[in-house]
């Protein structure tokens, strides 16, 4: 017994040495001889004739300007397409709309000759991030695939803050632009300011960041107080996630100043429920017993489907007015069996159903025509992002990611959500006036597939209250 064991130990020790030596040698060799640069973006030479001026600066151009100055002819053979990567939860409404919005833009641009004489092409990977139990590594693996396997030259996407934050960390390695169209977390932009050379690739196109979302909501509440001064008791009900934790204190500070009272009994002054909850009896009962007249609802996931049904079933005498991503989807009425009626939510001004400019009108009409449904904010964002990239590539004369950054920064473009410009943190600039920035709106569900804008005053219809209030 003893000899067998010590013989084994000796063989084991030799094996250890052999393998470690080989591994160490290989490691050292690879370190010195393998290029440390990650997958570089390929720049195929275009064989098409180009009439675009290469020194065109991107001033306040509309999308139509791009189309008129782009190439007139594209040869159909031997032209390598430019890969636009869509990195999103592709089975969730946010991801689906993202891809469709991007596809619409790609089709339009290709119909007018593409960019730099090359057609655009969508490649997509599913991060599954809408599911709260999916870990961050799934999103990172998808990101890896989209760059190393699909050869995306730019990424449009993102939805969950922690996943997008992790994806942002990988940008210095991949060196391609990342246009976020789903996550609103302000830390994403702060990273750009703190470490510009590393994270300059990141841009937040939609929605406006969470601080701006709060600003919009507060402005609406101010307007609401003016039209319905008797409704002042607010109950804050939010998913227990980072973006709301950042937003709630802003509300808690400003709402009282506008004349509202926050009636939450919880010590935090707000009721946080676990993301992915399905049973809302406790919350609805708390709302009722607190005497609230308004529920300031903050939901980014699908929780509100069950929440709103419970609210309607129990006939809680408080009107939900807040941010609810699930409720932005046209199918929300069907999902809640009509309980969605009267819910009031914040959306991008491009998603109200009442477009504010020609581009928005065309986007809306074409989107409904192709996809038989109405878009939510990720669709607008993706649509605008494709055009932003197309503009930048056209102006820069290249598809190289790092070279594009200064051109993207100079974006000054009108889209369905208003005027798109970026600030120092690479967040789209918010302004109540859509001719001056990306704007927001509040809409109320009124009928099947229909919601009507109730704010800003320029487009507002009157707000209705549920019959039991």
């Amino acid at each position, binding site marked *: 017994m003893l000899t067998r064991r010590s013989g084994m130990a000796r063989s084991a020790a030799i*094996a250890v040495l052999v393998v470690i030596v080989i591994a160490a040698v290989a490691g050292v060799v690879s370190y010195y001889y393998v290029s440390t640069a990650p997958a570089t973006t390929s720049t195929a030479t275009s064989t098409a004739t180009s009439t675009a001026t290469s020194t065109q600066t991107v001033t306040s151009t509309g999308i139509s300007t791009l189309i008129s100055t782009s190439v007139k002819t594209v040869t159909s053979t031997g032209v390598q397409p430019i890969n636009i990567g869509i990195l999103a939860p592709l089975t969730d409404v946010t991801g689906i709309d993202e891809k469709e919005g991007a596809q619409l833009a790609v089709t339009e641009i290709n119909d007018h000759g593409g960019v730099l004489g090359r057609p655009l092409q969508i490649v997509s990977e599913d991060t599954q991030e809408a599911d709260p139990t999916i870990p961050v590594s799934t999103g990172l693996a998808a990101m890896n*695939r989209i760059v190393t396997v699909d050869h995306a030259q730019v990424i449009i996407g993102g939805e969950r803050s922690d996943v997008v934050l992790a994806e942002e960390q990988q940008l210095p390695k991949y060196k391609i632009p990342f246009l976020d169209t789903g996550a609103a977390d302000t830390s994403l932009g702060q990273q750009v300011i703190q470490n510009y050379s590393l994270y300059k690739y990141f841009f937040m196109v939609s929605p406006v960041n969470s601080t701006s979302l709060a600003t919009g909501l507060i402005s609406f509440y101010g307007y609401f107080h003016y039209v319905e001064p008797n409704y002042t008791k607010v109950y804050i009900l939010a998913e227990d996630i980072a973006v709301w934790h950042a937003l709630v204190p802003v509300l808690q500070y400003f709402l009282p100043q506008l004349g509202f009272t926050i009636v939450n009994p919880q010590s935090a002054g707000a009721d946080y429920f676990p993301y992915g909850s399905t049973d809302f009896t406790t919350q609805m009962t708390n709302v009722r017993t607190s005497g609230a007249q308004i529920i300031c609802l903050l939901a980014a996931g699908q929780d509100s489907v069950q929440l709103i049904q419970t609210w309607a079933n129990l006939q809680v005498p408080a009107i939900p007015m807040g941010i609810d991503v699930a409720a932005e989807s046209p199918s929300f009425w069907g999902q809640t069996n009509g309980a969605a009626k009267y819910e009031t939510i914040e959306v991008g001004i491009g998603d109200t159903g009442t477009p504010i400019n020609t581009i928005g009108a065309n986007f809306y009409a074409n989107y409904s025509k192709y996809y038989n449904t109405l878009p939510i904010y990720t669709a607008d964002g993706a649509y605008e992002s494709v055009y932003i990239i197309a503009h930048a590539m056209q102006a820069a004369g290249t598809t190289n990611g790092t070279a594009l950054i200064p051109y993207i920064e100079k974006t000054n473009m009108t889209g369905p959500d208003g005027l798109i410009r970026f600030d120092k943190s690479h967040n789209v600039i918010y302004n109540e006036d859509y001719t001056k920035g990306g704007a927001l709106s509040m809409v109320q569900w009124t009928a099947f597939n229909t919601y009507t804008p109730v704010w800003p005053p320029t487009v507002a219809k009157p707000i209705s209250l549920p019959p039991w209030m």
Partner: protein
Amino acid sequence: MARLSRLLVIGVVIGLTLVLFPVVYSNDFALTIMTFANTLAIVAVSWDFFTGLTGRFNFGQALFFGVGSYAAGFMNLNLKYGPMLTIPLAGAVAIVIGVAFGYPTLRLKGPYFALATLIFPLIAGDLTFSLSSVFGGEHGLYGLATISDSYVVQYYGSLLLMLATVIVLLYLASSRLGLALESIRDDEKAASATGMNVTNYKLVAYIISAFFTGMAGAYQAQLFKFVGPDTFSSNISFEVIAMTIVGGIATIVGPVLGAYLLVIVLDGLGVSSDISVLTYGVLLMVIVLAFPGGLLGRLKTNLRGMRIRRLVGGKPAAT
């Protein structure tokens, strides 16, 4: 004896294949998949060392993975230690945590230790949220340093760590320590009747398991340059159990196979998550019903030539 050295030869050949893999197949995506697989393999192998040898089920291996990740992230951000230093240090921190959680619970009889392990990662995860100013809360810690941006270097790093783990644990499993642990698994009452402090031995195995898993967590922290609360996720705890069952429990090398299989099926093929988890679930079911020793169970007898089917059913151990 001949059987054992034949196994060693096979092991070295496989080791060489893994080492030369990037040279033959220099696909960036494949490299990242294998790197990730190696990291998880370390966790699975450590789990097998504890549960396979002592027979005590640990449902919370993610505790050490998360602890290692956060320790490395914390040290990197606040003490400015580089990954070469934080990886072993994170392992040490995991040992401390292992003692803290293991000491009061390993003495419990019946399934109660196993149930307790379910809760450990939840407690640790909750702490990162309560101390969110230190540990970043939901955002986690980001902007961490990395060993290298090169896919190849990361692959070799993870491979090195994984092979070292396997070899060390194989050695320990075949040593007197391993023998003692297996005697606890086979009959705890008899073992303690010989005067052995059973709880202490289990604790030693537990913290060894913690050490390597902690290092794996630290490795992932520098790989992603980011640490989040999902490092405590029960997904990880259950995945390593599944990997080990499929690969072969109490074999130490089986989990590596199980890990490669799982990662390739789940992340590498780009199939929808539902289908890949379903496939793995069915695989697990089939293994438990038909091949209780796992895929490598038939290949591997235990390291002293005894059959090790006692844990998972079948004929009793022959001496």
